[in-house]
């Protein structure tokens, strides 16, 4: 097992190197010049331009810049933002919890709703519940979530005024960030109503972000259940006279969950992509919005190190999914 993990980790090294190359290379290819963007409508004199470019290190040959970048990376220095002049890593760390909170909440909603719906749909195959829920899942799967988010805002925030429009918590509440997760921090703060406020801010964006994973999980659960229920050992269990609940609960569900867990794990990429859109719509201060803003501002260091960090997270999560899959899959173990 350890060897398995080590090989997997070793495989990550060239990929990571490739990612730095891609992140760095793309950024150098970006048209548009951060120095000019800083100057804006006014323009910048050629001498001044050269001066600033030198200060930012843009005057060196590209390969030197790359080696310098790699060297800095190895020393844990991801560069400074051109716009705010602050270290990229510290900006990432302040914004990342917001995205994680949103993503976790979305995946919890997607799993908590998707798995039972899929199981019931499989058990009652062909029933109205199956048909309606699977149609719903397909609609969810086909949903342009940026539009879906706008519709929810119009309805719940605009017409009904049930939920706040944007942000993470009402400005009435004010407490130090301990974990960076607003739900937990609001509990720790002990201020009455803070948790409720944080929750009401979180609900619409997480529902929007959960839409596609929910649909995928429900469909995957259903088909995995159907497959497992057709297997011999489930039939045997049934024939042995075990109660249907026990058959489904213990035997079928446990085995059907293996591909479902993989599916859930693989939604991380979908979630991060979705976070870009969701955070834009709801003005959620997370890394998705940060990346979009930085791309449009040509904030080279932020974009390249941001890409790197996000890719690293995706790969690590995928690795964990891989390992869990190996751990829990009895068929693999038996072989």
């Amino acid at each position, binding site marked *: 097992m350890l060897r398995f993990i080590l090989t997997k980790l070793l*495989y990550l090294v060239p*990929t990571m190197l490739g990612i730095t190359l891609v992140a760095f290379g793309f950024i150098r290819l970006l048209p548009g010049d951060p120095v000019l963007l800083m100057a804006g409508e006014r323009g910048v004199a050629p001498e001044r331009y050269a001066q600033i470019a030198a200060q930012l290190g843009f005057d060196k040959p590209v390969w030197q810049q790359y080696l310098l970048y790699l060297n800095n990376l190895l020393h844990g220095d991801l560069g400074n933002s051109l716009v705010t002049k602050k270290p990229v890593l510290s900006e990432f760390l302040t914004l990342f919890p917001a995205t994680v909170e949103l993503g976790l909440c979305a995946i919890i909603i997607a799993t908590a709703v998707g798995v039972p719906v899929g199981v019931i749909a499989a058990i009652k195959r062909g029933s109205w519940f199956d048909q309606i829920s699977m149609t719903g899942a397909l609609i969810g799967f*086909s949903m*342009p979530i940026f*539009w879906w988010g706008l519709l929810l805002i*119009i309805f719940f925030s605009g017409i009904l005024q049930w939920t706040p429009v944007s942000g993470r918590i009402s400005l009435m509440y004010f407490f130090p960030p301990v974990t960076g997760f607003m739900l937990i921090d609001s509990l720790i703060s002990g201020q009455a109503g803070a948790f409720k406020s944080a929750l009401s801010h979180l609900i619409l964006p997480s529902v929007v972000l959960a839409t596609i994973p929910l649909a995928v999980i429900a469909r995957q659960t259903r088909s995995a259940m159907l497959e497992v229920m057709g297997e011999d050992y489930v039939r045997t269990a049934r024939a042995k006279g075990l109660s249907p609940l026990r058959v489904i609960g213990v035997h079928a569900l446990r085995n059907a969950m293996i591909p479902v867990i993989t599916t859930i794990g693989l939604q991380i990429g979908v979630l991060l992509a979705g976070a870009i859109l969701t955070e834009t719509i709801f003005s959620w201060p997370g890394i998705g919005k940060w990346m979009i803003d930085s*791309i449009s501002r040509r904030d080279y260091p932020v974009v390249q190190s941001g890409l790197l960090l996000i890719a690293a997270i995706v790969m690590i999560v995928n690795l964990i999914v891989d390992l869990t899959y190996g751990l829990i899959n009895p068929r693999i173990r038996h072989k």
Partner: protein
Amino acid sequence: MTDTTVKISDAAIRRRQIKEFWFYFSQNRGAVIGLVVFVLLVLTALFAPLLAPHDPTQQYRDALLAPPFWAEGGRAGFLLGTDAVGRDMLSRLIYGAQYSLFIGIVVVAIALIGGIFIGLIAGFYGGWVDNVIMRVMDVVLAFPSLLLALVLVAVLGPGLTNAMIAIAIVYQPHFARLTRAAVMGEKAREYVTAAKVAGASNLRLMFKTILPNCLAPLIVQATLSFSSAVLDSAALGFLGMGAQPPASEWGTMLAEAREFILRAWWVVTFPGLAILISVLAINLMGDGLRDALDPKLKRS
């Protein structure tokens, strides 16, 4: 002599396969509905100039943000209302179908061809070639697709063509992986060995012998990619990186409409609905295709 007999039976098998395929496909009510909607969509796109009541770029400056005809203040001349510069929504939506289909087709074509080519090479040659190619694919897959497409578009410059290229590049590894896996599976089969012994060239082996036998998963993936391409290009358009105004691409229309979300619901609602319906239709078809093509799922 034997050669011809093989060919005839081949054709007969194909015909039977198609018949069988259609049987399973038409069993699936959703798939048929999806197909019908999709055909309608294609017809709309093809005959847009005949169907659209107005020129999609014509600005009626006396009718800015007119609501749909049934709402208060609506006009019969603009069935679904007008946008902020007085362009007819219905006509823009109809022309928008052209963009979406075009995007879907081009993206899938580029991704499919590129992916098959790369996948075939990796799977067929194996060894270090395979290793290098697959590591590169890993790199591409490590990024969330929309994020990578965004950065690519930023590099290439915002616009429809570049958005399509970016999305195709991002999708391409899926096809490459599928092809590679299929090729690896097929390579050891008897008919390949037989062809090899018969002296078939590598190229012939790859494209004529192996490829046709791994088409099923590729077709399913292609339909999936088609709908994702429509969604992702709309998302890029929404973020201002896709088709540029005044193009009546649905995502771009949504981006332009965003500032009117509280004032003119129709400019927000209809383009999104158009995206949803087209993507849904394609996905329904995709489900049907998968059920009909994938023998394993057919059983359950």
